[in-house]
């Protein structure tokens, strides 16, 4: 049995967990914990690279390796970790601001690079930690402190974006359904390549529109639909555009593009950190300049 990631190491800071009571982050953390247990991943075998925001604090409340990095930059840093030691399970964690606003450029290129990392996005359609401004996934007209007349922009669609870029694994989960979310996290970690898991997460404090109840009446799982094939890109793209009275969850799209870390000849034999420095070749390299 792996060690319990929640109790292996006692929390040593004086602060309580910084999430609001009833926050969807608690459910996401439970699903992450269950997924790691199911995969027999010990705390020392996994690295969480977290951005900035309430979502990105998730690994702070677990036992695991953590590189708590800059807002928006978790994906590039996670790529560096994975390429340096591909034995590690690498998970990038953040919210919609982290991954779809500040880090959107990195998301686009991470999808193309296809390094074997898992990206968990707590998508609550609002900026929580800065106290309730509209986010890239807020619906048009969403009124906040910085959009008193309502957000003028159409929301960003992360799933359609990822499918269009031929991402290897594109899925959506819901914080209100821990068992199904756990299954999706397990599948995302198991996928060899970049996996994007967008997690619908109601914000109990700042988003009075997209509530648990609002989602519960709309969410369904595409993989329960007979005949749905996540490898069919056209079908997947059509589903990814669906948003309204029905919201699709589950594994929307997947393919078998080889992961970057499987393709690099430098990594064929062993992880970069285990490779000795070839000091015997230095002299010959220098003599090339003579």
């Amino acid at each position, binding site marked *: 049995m792996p*060690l319990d990631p929640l109790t*292996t*190491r006692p*929390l*040593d*800071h*004086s*602060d309580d967990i910084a999430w609001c009571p009833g926050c969807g982050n608690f459910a996401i953390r439970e699903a992450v914990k269950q997924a790691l247990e199911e995969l027999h991943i*010990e*705390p*020392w*075998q996994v*690295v969480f*690279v977290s951005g*900035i925001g309430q979502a990105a*604090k998730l690994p*702070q409340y677990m*036992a*695991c*390796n*953590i*590189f*708590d*990095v*800059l807002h928006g*930059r978790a994906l*590039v*840093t*996670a*790529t*560096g*970790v*994975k*390429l*340096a*030691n591909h*034995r*590690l399970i690498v998970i990038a964690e953040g919210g919609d601001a982290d991954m779809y606003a500040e880090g959107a*450029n*990195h998301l*686009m*290129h991470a999808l193309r690079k296809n390094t074997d990392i898992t990206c968990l996005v707590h998508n609550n359609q609002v900026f929580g930690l800065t106290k309730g401004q509209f986010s890239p996934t807020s619906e048009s007209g969403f009124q906040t402190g910085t959009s008193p007349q309502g957000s003028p922009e159409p929301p960003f669609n992360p799933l359609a974006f990822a499918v269009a870029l031929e991402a290897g694994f594109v899925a959506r989960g819901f914080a209100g359904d821990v068992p199904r979310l756990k299954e999706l996290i397990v599948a995302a970690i198991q996928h060899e390549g970049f996996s994007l898991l967008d997690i619908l997460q109601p914000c109990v404090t700042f988003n009075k529109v997209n509530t648990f109840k609002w989602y519960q009446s709309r969410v369904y799982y595409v993989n329960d639909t007979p005949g749905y094939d996540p490898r069919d890109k056209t079908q997947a793209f059509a589903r990814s555009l669906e948003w309204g009275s029905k919201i699709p969850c589950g594994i929307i799209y997947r393919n078998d593009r080889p992961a970057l870390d499987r393709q*690099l*000849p*430098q*990594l064929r034999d062993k992880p*970069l*950190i285990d*490779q000795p*420095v*070839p*000091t015997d*070749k*230095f*002299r010959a*390299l*220098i003599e090339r*300049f*003579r």
Partner: protein
Amino acid sequence: MTDLTFRIAGQAGQGLQSISTTLGRLLARAGYHVFANQDLMSRIRGGQNASSIRVADAPVSAPSESVNVLIALDEHSLGLHVPSLVPGGVAMFDADDSDSVPLPDGSNAVLFPVPMTRLAESVGKSPLMLNAVALGALIFLTDYPLEQLKTMFQEAFAAKGGQAVQANFACAKAGFDHARQYFKASCPCRIALPPLTQKRLFLTGNEAIALGAICSGVKFHSGYPMSPSTSIMEFLAAQGREFGIIVEQTEDEIGGINMALGASYAGVRAMTATSGGGFALMTEGLGLSGISETPIIIVICSRPGPATGFPTRTEQADLLFALHAGQDEFPRFIFAPGNAEQAFRLTSKAFDLSQKYQVPAIVLSDQFLSDSYATIDDLKPEALHIGSFAGPGDLPAYSYQRYAQTGDGYARLLPGTPNQVVVTAGHEHSASGLITESAADRIQMMDRRLGKLEPMREELDGMTAHPDSLDHLTTGPHDHLLLCFGSLFGAVREAVDVLRAQGTNLGMLHLSELAPFPAKLLTERAARSRRLITVEGNATAQLAQLIHAETRLHIADSILKFDGRPFTAAEIIREFRTGI
């Protein structure tokens, strides 16, 4: 004493660079000290470019203003550069004869027309090979056997195959034969450069930086192309398979530094390289390195700015920016090599000390040092120190604290160590690495980070510890002390030698290690000089400002240049004399 300058001038795309490097390498193999720099426009074809090759029998690491031989590949270049020729200098140019050549009044250049384009078309079947024709004619001038050129072509065109070698060599032979036929052996323009004994290395500053990184065990480089840094990334990428180095081209410089930080956290030596504009984007990542104590090497190859500035030209105006980049306060190393040998050695020192103290280290170069070729007797990878990770030893399961004071330096565990987790943070954190709001934790961590400053300072020599030590130039007492940093080493050294030979009691202090600042050394040396003068490639005397901030010494006089072009010794001498 031999000290000659060849200048090859023409349009971008005419192959100036390849004439320059081939000739430079040939002379370096013959045992000469060679220095080659380029004056390039930011374009792919056309414009006016020039490459100057200075060859001497004593070390040189700066350009000369006086040109002995001009090779003009187009008519415009001829008129532009003839005024730089010494009296009786040779002007070789692309023409059948010299009848219709417009020269400035009063020029007494020896004219040497070579029908480069015509020969390239008839022999090489391509006008593009005019550079090989020019090279052949030049080889005749320098009295070298043409066969040596064949060896160079074989090395240069190894990838392109025998046909490219044959065609280029045939063109070179045509140029050589033309020169032999039309210029008698007794021609005064013939320049004998008899082979000396030692074959020297011939490489650019960026190649020296990349070699320094490889020989220090670099395993990861991520970055975004930006002139004049890009050749570092390209060189490392070319060696990637053989030396086990991953080179990732990222979407921007923000990605470049943050990806390298991820690799460094996981335990490999990691770097990025850019210019001032890219470094501006990296400043937040620099801070992440600082607070999380994650080692990183950042090479800044400066060019004039701000914003886009002068992309292909040189300046030393990023010193204070490199020193102060990033919000709040955290320690960093800054190294500013003065030539290719220092670039190799100080890049390695940057890796070693960044790893040891777990701080960012900046190698501050500029376009002039990065792109210029120079000869070096040798580089000694055997003398470099490649430290290894030393964990804190056996610990009870899950008890490791990343930021605990262990008493045995700054040892760290790597993620993936069985039954331990490594928690690293860009937030303020407690000893465990977890996010904190505690004032006591904040003070403890600030003390930990800033407590490195004095031990870091003690690691540095401050000034250039060069094999041919500058002690006799720096210890004084002197009437004047010229202070400089980075790529100005060669030009200032040459100016000081000339002025001293003429009887001026003048010293020189070249600072190659600028942060933490060697205040003690500077104060000591300054006390033995009557007058201090900085020589800097910027407009506001940044070195003088830094010296004042660190030592309270006020330096009233500075020789400054900020037109994007490199200093020559002659300019420094003129400015110095004007100022006395």
